[in-house]
């Protein structure tokens, strides 16, 4: 269904900076969003300032933060996939791909958002993006959804050029800042003027993945 969006990212908060405004905009325009979050970010280093979480309690806090972020954005369907932070690249690829395929078959998305494999810095990001691309590449061409990838490694522009999709999310800064703030164990938003906030957070960029 063209109006269905499937988001596949490994950590609670991966949606906040790069995607939350775009999702809020699509939802306003009538999209239904399923967000499959692979882990609970249980190995994160940030525990709040001052630290209110620890290694044992962090996943509990992060799950609540993720749920709040989704409510703020308007995401209708959150799936917690139950993998462990930092381990996605070591998972059995066939099993991981099979779970992604199940999601694709159930949601039938017109658009999928994930990380651009190789250009997303964190090993979990790259492994998640790689699994999504592998799985979609195996679908018949006419069944493939559009895949929009987030890339932020320093070498991305030399390697894959400039992003082809830029979304003006300034009208959705309330949702975006709400999403970032929901992840309070991870981020503290700096005190910025409205103009500075728009400059910093007002645009989201994606690479449409080209299947060969």
């Amino acid at each position, binding site marked *: 269904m063209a109006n269905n969006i499937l988001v596949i990212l490994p950590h609670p908060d991966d949606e906040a900076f790069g995607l939350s405004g775009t999702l809020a905009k699509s939802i306003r325009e009538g999209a239904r969003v399923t967000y499959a979050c692979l882990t609970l970010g249980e*190995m*994160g*280093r*940030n*525990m*709040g*300032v*001052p*630290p*209110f*979480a*620890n*290694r*044992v*309690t962090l996943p509990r806090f992060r799950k609540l933060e993720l749920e709040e972020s989704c409510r703020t954005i308007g995401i209708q369907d959150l799936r917690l996939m139950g993998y462990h932070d*930092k381990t996605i690249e070591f998972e059995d690829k066939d099993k991981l791909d099979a779970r992604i395929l199940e999601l694709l078959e159930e949601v039938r998305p017109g658009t999928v958002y994930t990380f651009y494999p190789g250009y997303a*810095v*964190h*090993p*979990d990001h790259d492994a998640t993006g790689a699994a999504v691309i592998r799985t979609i590449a195996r679908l018949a061409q006419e069944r493939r959804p559009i895949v929009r990838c987030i890339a932020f*490694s*320093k070498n991305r522009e030399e390697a894959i050029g400039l992003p082809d999709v830029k979304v003006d999310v300034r009208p959705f800064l309330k949702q975006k800042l709400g999403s970032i703030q929901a992840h309070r164990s991870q981020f503290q938003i700096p005190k910025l003027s409205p103009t500075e906030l728009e400059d910093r957070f007002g645009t989201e960029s994606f690479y449409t993945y080209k299947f060969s």
Partner: protein
Amino acid sequence: MQLIHPVQVQIRLNALRDQDVFIHLEMTSGAYAAHNDSSKHPSATFITNARIRYAHGSIEGAGPYRVGLKTENGWVYSEGLTHWDENDTERLILAGHDAQGKLVVALQLSRQPF
């Protein structure tokens, strides 16, 4: 998490010795170390729910603290510990946070798996 109270931590260490306990031991520079500063080397290691038994364990230093646990055939060592969870009476949860509040090191002991 609270700042470590070494006397209280020592009492917990004593209560967990001479029995099988589960350990989570971790050190990390963060996955973004090199992305944020190319002079940095990203490194991290953790072992979770390994079983150990120590005959003697102590917390040392003036803060940040060091903990050493003497096992039958070797040692567990951790340096840079700053915080603990004083409200967790069953387990010993120790962590070291840097100046930005980020976790750098963790040492946890429990009779039940984490």
